[in-house]
Structures are given as C-alpha cells and as structure tokens.
C-alpha cells in the first residue's frame, strides 16, 4: 500500500528559522528518510515554497479562473497531486487548465513551486 504523508506547520514559524535551525531540521528528517530509503520503502520527498509563491486555478464553467495565492477554501479537501518539470508558471497554468478540461466541475488546482525535491527510489505503480 502507498501512503502520502502530508506536512503541516506554521509557514511563518518555519520562515523564521535560522540557517542553522533549518539545516538541523532537514538533516534530522533526512536521517529518518534514509532508514526507509534503505528498505526500498521511500518514494519522492518534496518541500514546497511558501504560499506567497502559489497560484490557484479555480475551475469554472467556461474558462477557469487564475487567482494569485494559495487555495484557501475549506469546503473542498486535498485529494491528490501532480508533479511536473517545466520552465515557467505559464506552462504550469496551461497544464492545470488541461486538467480542468479533462475533469471539469468544482474544485481547484493550486500550483506551487518546490523548494526541495528528492526523487526517491522507484515504487510499484498501483
């Protein structure tokens, strides 16, 4: 079975970390990752940039709406994600719009650049 473990914390608190504090947290986490990676159980690990770097595509009848900032509604739940490797935000928006066409209706796609990415070992598809 594959599980995603999502990280929540106060963005402002994390931004206030000194370089040393940040390095300490990251290396402590890396020690845990290492154990699971060695057992072939770890997939990709990602850390996102702050929500100020986010752009949200809100699905709408007709053309979807591009809004600056993170997804801020509470009516909808976090259901999944895509990871894409592209050059610009515009490309990411095009991708999200294609997704919105493929899966119209309600909901949104929040587009957030990554701050840290570790691809991890290959896992079995399901």
């Amino acid at each position, binding site marked *: 079975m594959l599980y995603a473990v999502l990280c929540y914390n*106060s963005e*402002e*608190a994390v*931004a*206030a970390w000194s370089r040393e504090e940040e390095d300490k947290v990251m290396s402590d986490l890396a020690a845990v990752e290492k154990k699971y990676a060695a057992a072939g159980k770890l997939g990709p690990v990602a850390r996102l*940039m*702050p*929500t*100020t*770097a986010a*752009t949200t595509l809100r699905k709408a009848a007709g053309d979807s709406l*591009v*809004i*600056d*900032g993170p997804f801020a509604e509470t009516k909808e739940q976090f259901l999944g994600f895509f990871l894409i490797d592209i050059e*610009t*935000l*515009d490309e990411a928006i095009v991708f999200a719009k294609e997704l919105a066409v493929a899966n119209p209706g309600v909901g949104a796609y929040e587009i957030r*650049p990554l*701050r*840290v990415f570790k691809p991890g070992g290959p896992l079995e598809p399901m």
Partner: protein
Amino acid sequence: MSELAWIDLALSSARPQAMGALLRYFRDLDLAEEAFQEACLRAVKTWPDKGPPRDAVAWLIFVGRNSGIDHLRKRARQQPLPPEEMLSDLDDVEGDLAERLDGSHYRDDILRLMFVCCHPDLPATQQIALALRIVSGLSVRQIGRAFLVSEAAMEQRITRAKAKIAAAGLPFETPDAVSRAERLGVVAAMIYLVFNEGYSAGEPQRAEAPFCAEAIRLARLLLRLFPSEPEIMGLTALLLLQHSRLQARFDADGQIVLLEDQDRSLWDQRMIREALALIDKALRHRAPGPYQIQAAIAALHARAPQAEETDWAEIDLLYQSLERLQPSPVVTLNRAVAVSRLQGPEAALALIEPLAERLSGYFYFHGLKGGLLKQLGRAREAHTAFERAITLATSPAEAAHIRQHLDSLARDMAADAG
C-alpha cells in the same frame, strides 16, 4: 522547541494583526501597544497551563481590548477595577468573540498599522525605527544598537515620532481602492528602507538586529494580504535576491566583496528560486513597476553562473525602462555600471558626469567615478574621487573598500614615478 520559544513565536506572528485591530479600537498607538503588551503577559502566564488557544490572534485582541478599556477606566478614575478573577476568566474568549477575523477587516488593520509608521513628516530613519518597534516588535534596545545610539536616545526618537504621528491624526477611515493602493506603495517603500538599513550595515549591526530578514518577513506578510499585487511580488523577490548573497558579500575580515568577485556557490539558491517564482507570477500581470524591474535586474545577476556571463545588455535595457518609469540620478548611476561593461569606462563616465551636482553627497557616485577614472588611467582624478567617497562612506566596510582602491592607486602611481 521549548514552550517559551513557541509562545514567543506565536506572539510575534500574531503581533501585526492584533496590534492593527487594537489600534483600530483605541485610535492611539501608545494605548494599543500597552494593551498588546498586557495581552502578551497574560498569554505567557496562562498558555503554558491551559494550552495555547485555538486562535491566538483572536485571544490577544480580546484580552488586549479588555486590558485597554481597563486602562482607560483607570485613567478616567470613573469606577473601581473589576476583580482580577473576572478579568482573568478567559476560558471562553474565542467562543463569543465578537471580533470575527474576516479577511477584509484585518487586511486594512495591518496596512494601517504599517502605514502610520510611514508618515511623510518622519525622516527615513524614524520610519524604520518606528516600523521595527510597532509592527515587528523589536526592542528599543535592539533598534538603538543597530543605529548606534543608546537605548534612551532611541526611546526618545520613537516617542517623538509617535507624538508627530498623533498630532497629524491617524487615518482611521476604511480606505477606498485608490488610497489603499497609495498606502500600499508607501508601506512597500518603508519595507525597502528597512531592508536597506540592514543591507548597508556592517557585520556587527547585522547580527544584532536582523533587519533584512525582518523586511522580508514584512514583505511576505504584505503579499499574503494583497496576493495579486505584482509590485509587492516584485518587492519580495528583490529583497530575497539581495539577501541571497548575504554569505558572499563580506569576506572573513568583514571587507566588502563586490558582486563580480563573489563566490557564487555561497549564494542561497533557495531564496533565488523563490524570487524567480515570484517574478514569474508578477510577469503574468503585465503591469511592470520599479520593484519588478529591479527584481528582474537582480535576477539576471542571480542567473549568471559566473560574473562574465552576466547579461549586461538586458540589464542596460531594464535600467532604461526604470529610468523612464522612475527617473532618478541613482538609477542612471546604476545603469552606468552596465554601460561601462558594454561600451567601456569612457561612455559610462559621460553618462554620470551630468549627475555630479545632484549626487555630490552620494558615496556610490564618487566610488564609481573613481573606479571608471582608474580604468581610464586618470589616476590623479581617480584619487580625488576616492578621497571624496571615503568621507561619505556610511560604514567601516565601505570606507575600507575605498581605502583598498586608494592603496592600489598609490602603488600604481609610485610604480609610474619609479
């Protein structure tokens, strides 16, 4: 994280919003500050036992408001204080909180709090000091040290600044779109000033008061409040790009290392990437502004793996658009650096010579002029320019940097004479 550290962090994150709301209630900076202080004291007393409230900001506003009202009553001597048990009964504070923290309200609260620190009658240093005190909550002592004045002297400055603001009348009406945009511009400029104060300060000052990091925090806060403002994206990106070079800007002896000589592997790539993402966001708005252009210029430096690969032609073009948008001799001076790379020192010198009068008291003007003259082999004139620069240096590091130029000039001149 220890309990106290956690509370400290929660209080400082809550500060702008809580102070903003308390200022709206009391329309008095001092009273708002006292009320917030009191609420913080209560938090430190009660949170460890009862656990943190669900909504720290709401809690602080409520407790602060009660304490402020209490204070006003005491001042007016109208009635005796209610018993302490009643005031401290805060179990259900959030439950019946009238102050629901809906977005529209607190956005203007925080903007107002920042805006009052930027009164046009206040000189830049006072705006900076006030913002760091009122919005960021740095201690007077910390701010004083950064400005190399005693705590008492800084206290006096801040008190005077507050008196000036109070006399001028605080802006309490809810701003319309136009005045909101104006406030935003003024506040952005103040944040940039805070950053520059930290950026130009030498090593000891930077360690004492993290002005640059604080400015970035304020810029991010502003961007969270106004997520669709491309200039605020530009400002945040610009600050991140400048700050990304922190580790490379000074050598082990605290001497300035120029951009072209910096070890680029020391640049913080994460800050750079975040800045680039923000610039990308801003570009989509097709509404260029001075911060976005400056961020784009800084980004071109950040993108060059080595100094030789810098896209000076693009930088020149960006400075030209900045000159059109916001004409200033300082912008032209900066463009001259690009021009010197593209067309040589002579062309750059021709560009800056007309600025001599307006920039006669500006360190960088004389520093750049000296450098260009030196490149042209006009040692005596270069010497004069550097001598002038050194008297205008605002930090020991700046002075030491010019001293190096003077020394190398002296060596060249001695070699020529010999």
